[in-house]
C-alpha cells in the first residue's frame, strides 16, 4: 500500500489481482489527459532503434508471473508474457489479446482460441497446453499467492496442493480444462459457478511448456517450479520483449522480441531503472537519464517548466481513505451513522487535497472511482464541507460539548486516534489535517503515525486498538469489491478469520449487491446488470460512510518528448509498447 520515502513499494499491484493496497500515488477521476501522444504523432512513421528507460522506485522480485506479487515484477512479466485477454487501457473493457473467447449460455464455460499468429520467441506456436502449464504451476507452487484465484475452476481444488481447506491434492489433472483434440490452440474452462470477474482471472499465466513443462510433471515437487532457474532468467517469451540482464537493485534490461506475434517493437531495448525515490525519478526525467516515469504532485510545478518532457495526467484506480472502526470499544461514536456522516461533512476535503497533493486528486464519496464502469450514474451525496451540519449531526447523535469544549456522551469523551503508516508524508499530513479539523468539531482527535508492518497486521487480524486508519486501495481490473466490503472479510480473532473488512461495517443489502455483482444467481454478467448492483452498493456506502472515502490521486506520467505513441490509461500503461518509438 504505501511505501516509505526511501523504501521499496511494499505491496503489489498486479494486473490480475482484484485489489491492492496502493502506494502513495493513487489515482483519480480528473480524466484530464494531455493531448495524447498517440494522436499527436499518429501520422509520423516510426523510427527504429533506441532505448526506453522507465524509472521505478522498486526493484523487481521475480520474473515468474505465477510468483509475482509486486508492481515492479508485474511490469516486467507484463512486457515478457502476454495474457489471454487484456483490458482496454482507458475504459477497462475486457478484450482479446493472445486469444479470442466465447462464454457458454449458462455462463459456466469459457472457450478460448489462441491467435494463429501467436508464437513463442523460439518460434514454437503458443498452444492451449501452455496455458494449462501455467495453471498447473499455480496448483503445484508452494509460494504463489494465486491459488484462490482459480478456486472456481472445476477440478482445480482437487488438483492443487498441499491439502488444506481449499486444496485437496487428490487428482492428477485439472478436470475442468479441456483441450480441443483437433485444434491445439483451442480449449475450454468449466467453472463451478458463474463468476463475473473470472474472465480476467482466466487470462492466466501462459508459460512455455518447452521450458516449464519439466517442472510441473506428475512427480514434480513444489520447489522444482518455485526454484526453477528460468524464473530469474526467462529464456522463451510470448510478449514484445525478451530478457537480457537483471542487475540487482539497479536495472533490468530487456531486448526486443523481433518475432513478437503482434509485430516487432520499434525500440531495441526496454530498461527498468531502479532509483531510490520520487526525487530521483524527477531528476532523472529532467536530465534525460529516464525516458518516462511517474512523479508525485509536489514535483509537478517544477516539471512543468522542463521543455524536454510531456506530462500526461490520468486517474489512477485507487483512493486514499480514513477507515472508521465502527466496532471500536474506545471510539464508540463511530458506530453511529450520523457521527460518521458528521465526520464527512466536517472535513474540508477539497482544501485538504489542495494542501496535501497540490490539487492533483479528486474527492471520493464511495468505493469505485469514476473511470471504472462500475462507478454509479446516479448522484451520490457529495458531503460538501458544512461545519454547521456536522455539528448538528453530532448533536442529534447525542454528543454535546462539556465545559472543556470536548464532545461527550453518557459521560464518555469523544476521543479519536487517527493512525497511518509512518514515512508516508502525504498520509501523515492528511492525518494531522483531519485531526485538526475534527478538533474544531469538539472531537479530541490526534494523529498517530506507526510502522506500516505493524499496521497491516493489526488491520487484517482484528486488533481493536485501531480507531481510525488512513491507508489506500489500488483497485484491480475488475470492480468486484468482495474482499474489501463483504461481511465475510471482517476479521474475527476468535475464529482466526482475517481480512480487509477492518471497518466492521456490515449490511445484508450490501452483501447481496456484492454477491450479485460477482456470482449472479441469474448468471447475468453483463455490464449493465453488474452496474445496477454496484450502484446499490455504492449508495449504501455513500450513506453509511464506513470510510471517509478521501480522495483519488492523479497519476502524473512524465515522458520525454522524443517518446512517441506513449498513451497510458488508468488500466494500462504498456498495452501498446511494441508501437512506441523514439524520435531521433
Amino acid at each position, binding site marked *: 500500500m504505501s511505501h516509505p520515502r*526511501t523504501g521499496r513499494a511494499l505491496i503489489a499491484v498486479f494486473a490480475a489481482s482484484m485489489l491492492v493496497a496502493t502506494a502513495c500515488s493513487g489515482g483519480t477521476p480528473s480524466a484530464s489527459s494531455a493531448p495524447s501522444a498517440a494522436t499527436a504523432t499518429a501520422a509520423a512513421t516510426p523510427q527504429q532503434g533506441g532505448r526506453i528507460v522507465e524509472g521505478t522506485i522498486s526493484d523487481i522480485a521475480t520474473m515468474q508471473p505465477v510468483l509475482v506479487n509486486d508492481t515492479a515484477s508485474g511490469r516486467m512479466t507484463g512486457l515478457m508474457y502476454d495474457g489471454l485477454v487484456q483490458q482496454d487501457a482507458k475504459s477497462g473493457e475486457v478484450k482479446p489479446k493472445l486469444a479470442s473467447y466465447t462464454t457458454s449460455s449458462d455462463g459456466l464455460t469459457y472457450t478460448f482460441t489462441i491467435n494463429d499468429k501467436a508464437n513463442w520467441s523460439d518460434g514454437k506456436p503458443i498452444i492451449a497446453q501452455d496455458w494449462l502449464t501455467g495453471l498447473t504451476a499455480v496448483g503445484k507452487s508452494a509460494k504463489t499467492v494465486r491459488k484462490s484465484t482459480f478456486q472456481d475452476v472445476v477440478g482445480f481444488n482437487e488438483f492443487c496442493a498441499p491439502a488444506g481447506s481449499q486444496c485437496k491434492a487428490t487428482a492428477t489433472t485439472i478436470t475442468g480444462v479441456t483441450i480441443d483434440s483437433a485444434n491445439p490452440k483451442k480449449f475450454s474452462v468449466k467453472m463451478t459457478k458463474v463468476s463475473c470477474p473470472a474472465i480476467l482471472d482466466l487470462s492466466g499465466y501462459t508459460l512455455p511448456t518447452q521450458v516449464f513443462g519439466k517442472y510441473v510433471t506428475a512427480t514434480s515437487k513444489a520447489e522444482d517450479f518455485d526454484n526453477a532457474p528460468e524464473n530469474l532468467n526467462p529464456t522463451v517469451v510470448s510478449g514484445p520483449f525478451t530478457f537480457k540482464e537483471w542487475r540487482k*537493485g539497479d536495472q533490468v534490461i530487456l531486448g526486443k522480441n523481433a518475432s513478437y506475434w503482434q509485430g516487432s517493437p520499434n525500440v531495441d531495448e526496454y530498461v527498468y531503472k531502479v*532509483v531510490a525515490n520520487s526525487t530521483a525519478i524527477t531528476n*532523472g526525467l529532467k536530465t534525460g*537519464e529516464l525516458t518516462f516515469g511517474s512523479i508525485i504532485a509536489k514535483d509537478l510545478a517544477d516539471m512543468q517548466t522542463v521543455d524536454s518532457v510531456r506530462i500526461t495526467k490520468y486517474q489512477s484506480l485507487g483512493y486514499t481513505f480514513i477507515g472508521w472502526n465502527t466496532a471500536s470499544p474506545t471510539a464508540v461514536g463511530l458506530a453511529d451513522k450520523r457521527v460518521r456522516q458528521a465526520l464527512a461533512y466536517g472535513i474540508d476535503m477539497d482544501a485538504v487535497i489542495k494542501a496535501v497533493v497540490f490539487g492533483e486528486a479528486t474527492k471520493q464519496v464511495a468505493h469505485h472511482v469514476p473511470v471504472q464502469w462500475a462507478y454509479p450514474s446516479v448522484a451520490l451525496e457529495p458531503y460538501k464541507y458544512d461545519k454547521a451540519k456536522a455539528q448538528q449531526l453530532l448533536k442529534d447523535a447525542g454528543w454535546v460539548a462539556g465545559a472543556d469544549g470536548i464532545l461527550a456522551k453518557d459521560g464518555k469523551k469523544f476521543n479519536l486516534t487517527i493512525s497511518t503508516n509512518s514515512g508516508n508524508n502525504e498520509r501523515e499530513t492528511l492525518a494531522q489535517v483531519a485531526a485538526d479539523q475534527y478538533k474544531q468539531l469538539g472531537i479530541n482527535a490526534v494523529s498517530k503515525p506507526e510502522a*506500516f*508492518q505493524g499496521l497491516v497486521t493489526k488491520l487484517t487480524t482484528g486488533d481493536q486498538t485501531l480507531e481510525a486508519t488512513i491507508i489506500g486501495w489500488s483497485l484491480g481490473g475488475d470492480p468486484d469489491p468482495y474482499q474489501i466490503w463483504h461481511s465475510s472479510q471482517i476479521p474475527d480473532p476468535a475464529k482466526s478469520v482475517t481480512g480487509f473488512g477492518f471497518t466492521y461495517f456490515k449490511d445484508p443489502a450490501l452483501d447481496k449487491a456484492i454477491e450479485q455483482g460477482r456470482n449472479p444467481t441469474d448468471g447475468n454478467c453483463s455490464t449493465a446488470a453488474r452496474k445496477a448492483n454496484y450502484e446499490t452498493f455504492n449508495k449504501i456506502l455513500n450513506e453509511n460512510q464506513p470510510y471517509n472515502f478521501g480522495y483519488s490521486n492523479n497519476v502524473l506520467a512524465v515522458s520525454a518528448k522524443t517518446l512517441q505513441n506513449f498513451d497510458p490509461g488508468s488500466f494500462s500503461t504498456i498495452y501498446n509498447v511494441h508501437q512506441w518509438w523514439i524520435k531521433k
Partner: protein
Amino acid sequence: MRTFILRRLAYAIPTLLGISIITFVIVHLAPGDPIRLYTFGSRATNEDIEALRHVYGLDQPLPIQYVNWMWKVLHLDFGQSFIYHQDAAALFIQYIPNSLQLTVVALALQLLIGVPLGVIAALKRGTWADGAIRVFGVMGHAVPAFWLGLVLILFFAVQLRWLPSQGLLTVGKDVWDIPDRVRHMLLPAFVLSLTGIANYSRLLRTETLEVLSQDFVRTAHAKGLRERTVMFVHALRNALIPVVTALGGILAGLIGGALVIETVFSWPGIGRFTFQEAIAKDYPVIQAAVLIASVLLVISYIIRDVAYALVDPRIAVK
C-alpha cells in the same frame, strides 16, 4: 602473528553467536507479520497465508526456528528470501561489490585529502590556511549528507549536466566501463567521505602538533635531519597511530552507514538493500545481512589490529 589472528578469530565465534541471537529475537519480535505484509492487498486467503507460513517454517515456536536456522547457517544455507524466492545470503552478497567500491573510494578520499589537510594545518598553525582547514573541518561535520548530496545533484547533474544524477552506471554502458563508473562515483564518494575528511584533518592536526612538540622530534632536528625526513619519518608515523584506531570504527560505519548516501544517489548498495528488506520484514535476508556484515566487521577489526603493529612496532601482536 598467526596465533594472534587465530585467537582473534576464535574470540569472534561467541560474538557472532550473540549477534545472531539478538538479531533473530529483535527481528521476530518487532511488530508485524512478514507473510501478512507480503500478501496485503493480494487475494491470498487466510489459508494461503498459513500455507506460506508453513513453507518458511514460521509456524514453529521461536526457539525451534532459531535452532533450525542456525543449523542451516552452519551448512551455509541462510534460507530463502520471502520476497525474492532466492537464497538470502547470495542476494545480500550481490550488493557487496557495489558498496565496497563506494566505501573503498570514500576511504581513500578520506585518507588522501584528510591526512594532508591535517598535516598542513599543523605545519601552518595559526595561518589563514590553518583557519580555512579548520572551518572546512567543522563544516564537514555540520552539513547533513543528504542535503549536500541533493544540492550537489541539483548543481552538477540537473543544472550543469556534468555528472549523472543517480546510479552506478549509465544505462546501456558495459559493467566494466570504468570511466563511466568513476563519473557516477564522484559525487556519492565525496559526500560519503566528507565527514571522514573532516575527522582526519582535525585528528591529524592535533596529533601532529602534539608529536612535533615532543623530544624525539627536537632531537631529530638537532641531529640536523632535513625537515622533510623529520616530518615524514619521525613525526607523521607517530601521528598516524590514532588514525589507525579511528580506521576500524570508520570501516564499521562505512559498511553499515552508507544508507543515506545510497538513497540520495540511488546507489544499489547493501545499506539501502538491507533497509528495504528490513521494512519488508524479510527475515532470512535481514539475518543473513547482519551476520555477514558482522563477519566482515570482525575481519576489519583484525586487519586494524595488524595495521597497528605495522605502524607502531612498540605495539606487539600477541
